[in-house]
Each structure stands twice: as C-alpha cells, then as structure tokens.
C-alpha cells in the first residue's frame, strides 16, 4: 500500500496536474454516483470496526451486541489478567519480536533481489515463478508441509525457526513485488553517473540507490511487519507449542465470547497505528532531510 504512497509523488503528480475533460468545469453525473459508492465502501469498511472499538469499553455486564452497557476498562484488564483468555501478553511479545525479525530479513533480501531483477539473467524466470508460486500457495498447505518437514528432519517446530521461515515464504514475494514497483521509477543513468564519478559498486548502492529508494524501503518494511504480525494460516502448523498473537486470537474466537475479544481488537489496532505513524514519520523525516540537502 504505502509503496504506492511512496511513489505517488512521482506518478500522480504529473498526471493529475493536468485536468482532464470529464473533471473540468461541471461535475458529470458519474462523479456523484461514484462518490456515493466510495462513501458506502468507506462506511462498510470502518463501520463494523468502530462498533467493536465502542463495545470494548463496556462495563462488566457488557455483551457482544448493542446496546452498550455502561462504560469501563474492565475488558482490557480482563484481557491481560484472566487465565481463561489465554496467554495474550506472551503471544503478543512473541508476535512483535517475530515481526521485527521478519521485517529486517524481508527488507534486506527484497532489496537485493530487486537489484538482481533489474537485469535479465539466465534462469531469472525460474526464480520469478518460484516467488509467484510461494505467494499463491495456500498458507495452510505450506504450513503443514513445513511442519512435516521439520518433523521428518527431527527438528522442533518453534516460532523463531519454522514459523519464521513459513512467514518469510509469504512476506518475501510481497516485498520483492513492491521493490519491483519502487525500482521501476529508478533511473539507471544515476548508476552510470556514480560509476563515472569513480564510485565502486557498493558505494553506488549505499550512497545513491539506498537513499533514493528509502521511502520504498520503508514501505517494504511496513509490509513485512504487518503481514507477519497478522499471519495466521502459515503459522498454524509451524509455531510449535507457543502461540503467536493471531493464533491466540483464533483460539479466543473459539472459546471466549465476551467483549475481551473486542478489547483485543482495540489494542491491536492501537499498536498498528503506532507502527504506521512511526513509519510515516520516518518517510517524512527522510524527505525533509533530503529537501534540506538539496537546498544547501
């Protein structure tokens, strides 16, 4: 998503500055129809989620549906203290750690693969289709295969080995595809200019390519983090005895029928917003720094 955001300065700017006829002067009737559709879509997108955020602040008498019964932080306390809701805190810790590891690996490998795919090389199609295959393979099937493989090799499945690998088989194709889109905006002439000025291959990468692509790289990182933090099917057979957060949520949906479930939704949303905020902040900071550098 945010890859598009990162590119948008490059793509949308020249395109929309020149108004096209259907959007010049009087709005055509299609504008109102489509605006209505868009509004309905956004309403359907947010409505249900806002409902559960509100319902998570009920007091102890609260249930799963409206009307709301009182308000308190009861279900949040319940979430982190009750044994019957499971090990929310532990699984939460593991998920965050796992997501950070997945993010770092995804960024590095996607970036390198993106560089590699800029040129054709013998056998590149094999790697490309392997990646597409990894993207479309049913997560549960891959998870089972990984689980069986570990069993056959006599290895213990755990969140930081088998689950890590299973998640990478899903975040890497996404990361590389985003990297493709980001790198297609990169002008190869900049490489040539760097070489002409006497830069080595590594200097070119570190001093030219990485800074230019920085917003796109942050986008890949965001992708890696959220895909991992939310990954369920591929972790199911591979996480071993200790749950990650989505697995915990899954078991809660089967066992817990209290607003604790909604409180968990509210908490995870807040975490997501902190992560997005920090990432967008990083992009803005990079852009600002670059703007100053250009002026000075």
């Amino acid at each position, binding site marked *: *998503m945010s890859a598009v*955001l990162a*590119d*948008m300065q490059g793509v*949308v700017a020249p*395109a929309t500055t020149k108004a*096209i*006829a*259907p*959007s010049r002067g009087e709005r055509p009737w*299609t504008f109102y129809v489509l*605006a209505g559709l868009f509004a309905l*879509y*956004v309403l359907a*997108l*947010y409505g*249900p*989620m806002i*409902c559960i955020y509100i*319902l998570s602040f009920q007091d102890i008498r609260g249930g*799963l*549906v*409206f009307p709301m019964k009182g308000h308190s932080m009861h279900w949040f306390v319940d979430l982190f203290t009750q044994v019957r809701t499971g090990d929310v805190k532990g699984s939460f810790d593991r998920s965050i750690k796992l997501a950070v590891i997945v993010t770092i690996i995804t960024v590095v490998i996607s970036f*390198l*693969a993106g*560089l*590699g*795919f800029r*040129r054709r*090389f*013998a*056998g590149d199609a094999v*790697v490309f289709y*392997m990646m597409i*295959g*990894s*993207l*479309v*393979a*049913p997560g*549960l*099937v891959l998870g*089972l*295969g990984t689980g*069986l493989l570990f069993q056959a090799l006599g290895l213990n499945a755990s969140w930081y080995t088998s689950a890590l690998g*299973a998640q*990478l*088989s899903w975040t890497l194709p996404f990361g590389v*595809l985003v990297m*493709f889109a980001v*790198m297609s905006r990169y002008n*190869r002439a900049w490489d040539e200019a760097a070489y002409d000025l006497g830069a080595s291959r590594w200097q070119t990468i570190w001093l030219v390519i990485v800074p230019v692509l920085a917003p796109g790289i942050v986008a890949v990182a965001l992708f890696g983090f*959220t895909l991992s933090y939310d990954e369920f099917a591929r972790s199911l057979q591979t996480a071993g005895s200790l749950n990650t*957060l*989505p697995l915990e949520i*899954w078991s809660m*949906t089967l066992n817990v029928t209290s607003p604790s479930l909604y409180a968990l*939704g509210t908490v*995870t949303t807040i975490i*997501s917003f902190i992560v997005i905020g920090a990432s967008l902040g990083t992009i803005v900071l990079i852009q600002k720094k670059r703007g100053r550098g250009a002026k000075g």
Partner: protein
Amino acid sequence: MQSSQPPSRANLAGWLYVSPLVLVLVPFFVAPILVVLAASFFATDGFGGLTPGFTLSNYIEVLHSALTLKLYLATIKFTVLTWIFTLIIGFFVAYFLVFHVRNQLLAIGLFLLCTVPFWTSNIIRMISWIPLLGKEGLINQALLATGAIHQPLEVLLFSDLAVVIAYVHQLTIFMIVPIFNAMARIDKKLVEAAIDAGASRFDIMRLIVVPMSKSGIALGTIFVVSIVMGDFFVVKVMSGGGSASVVSAFYEDVGVLQYPTAAASAVLLTLVLVAIVSLILRTVDIRQEITR
C-alpha cells in the same frame, strides 16, 4: 540489457543478488511442497504415522468422494462471488480516485483512508461483523424498529452471505491497490485526445481505461483468488460451521491426522490454483508490466 559486462558475469551477478531469496524459498516453499507431494503418495496407519511408499489410493479416495465435488463447487462459488464484488468495487473506487478527485492531496488522503483498516488483524475485522449482522445485531434492530420485518433475520450471520461479506470486506483492498497503481500511470493526454476525437465516456472506459488497467486487474485477481481458495477460517467462522471449502476440509483432515488424504487434496487444489494463475499470467506479462 544495456550491460557492458559479458553475459556470464551478468548472470553471476544476478544470481548473487537473488541467492538470499532462493536460499529462503527452497527450504520454506519448494521443500514443503515436495513433502506434501510425497505424503500424498504415502500410506497411513490412521494415527498420524506415515508409511513411506507409493500408492495412488489417496488420490482415488479424494477423487471418488462425492464430497470433493461439493467442496470445490462451494469454494468456486465463494471465489467467483468475492472476485466479482471486489473487482467491481475496487475498479470503481480506483477510477473515482484517479479520474474524478481533482485535488491530488485529497486523492492520496482518500486512498490512505481505504488502506488503514488493512493494518488491523484480519480475524478481528472478521468478527467485527458480529455486532452488526447478529440476530440481535444493529441491522436486525434497525429493521425491526422500522417495522420492515417482524422477526430477526437469521440469514445475515452464520451463512454464505456472511462469508461473502467478510471476504469482500477483507479483500477489496487487494484490488484497489494494484488497479489504482495501473490507472495512475495512464497518460491523461490520451484521454484528452480521445475526447477531442469524439469518443464517448463509455468508449474511453472500454478502449483506454480498462485495457490499460489490465495488469492491475490481473494482479488483484491473483491475490483475491489465491487468498479465497486458500482460506479456511473465514468460511469456518462466518458460516458458523455450516459451510465448508476445500481448505477447511483439509484443515479437518489434518486435525484428525489424516495426512495422506489431506496431502492429496492439497496437491489437487495447488494444481487448480497453478492452472488459474498461469491462465491469468498468459494474458498479462505481470513482470514486464510492473517493472516497465
């Protein structure tokens, strides 16, 4: 291509760059798929133990079962319905943002607005329909209050309808993003030229916008189809256990340790998916479209 290096050196450099990717995909994609393939030919003692060997009985069992056809029909029904709705909504939302919103900053803001819920847990987004669709949910309450119905509608939750609603809610974003990306690259001068040449709005849509968004539509279709066909928990939770899909049946098989038949059905499903995706890839060269 404009490389001055000899081809063998360029090949070596290319492989060096992608080697970390290959080193992850081989053990965690290729090997697990091969394990599942191998397991599909094994025999079992019925308690989770696998006996290495070669038997086609698992495939015969899966192919002969009347249930298999039912599961595939159900999965295809969910996939096609979800695909149609996400495509229509995704296409017009992207079209609205690219061609109708004049203020660029507003367009970016509205686009971000669509992507924000993506950052919340899928499972949480799915269960967030319960307060709305449930028997005592908001929709039923509203309909009862207006007198449109006299008994709460039970078809809203724990039904095929709820399954499709949850899929569309989760997956439309996978259509919007690639289609938006493809549409944003359409040169507006082309549209102006078409208008000057007397094209109607429908002509522009048919002859310019749709063909030039093809790569986005193809990519979005691949995402949506592979996710719906590979999913089980939306079907399980939103249908209340009333419906099943190929993967949810697979999940049940795994639960009772019927690995070989589960593996055989997984191999079949993977083949079906590969066929669909390669059909899509034949119409559009995605790699070329993205890197262009």
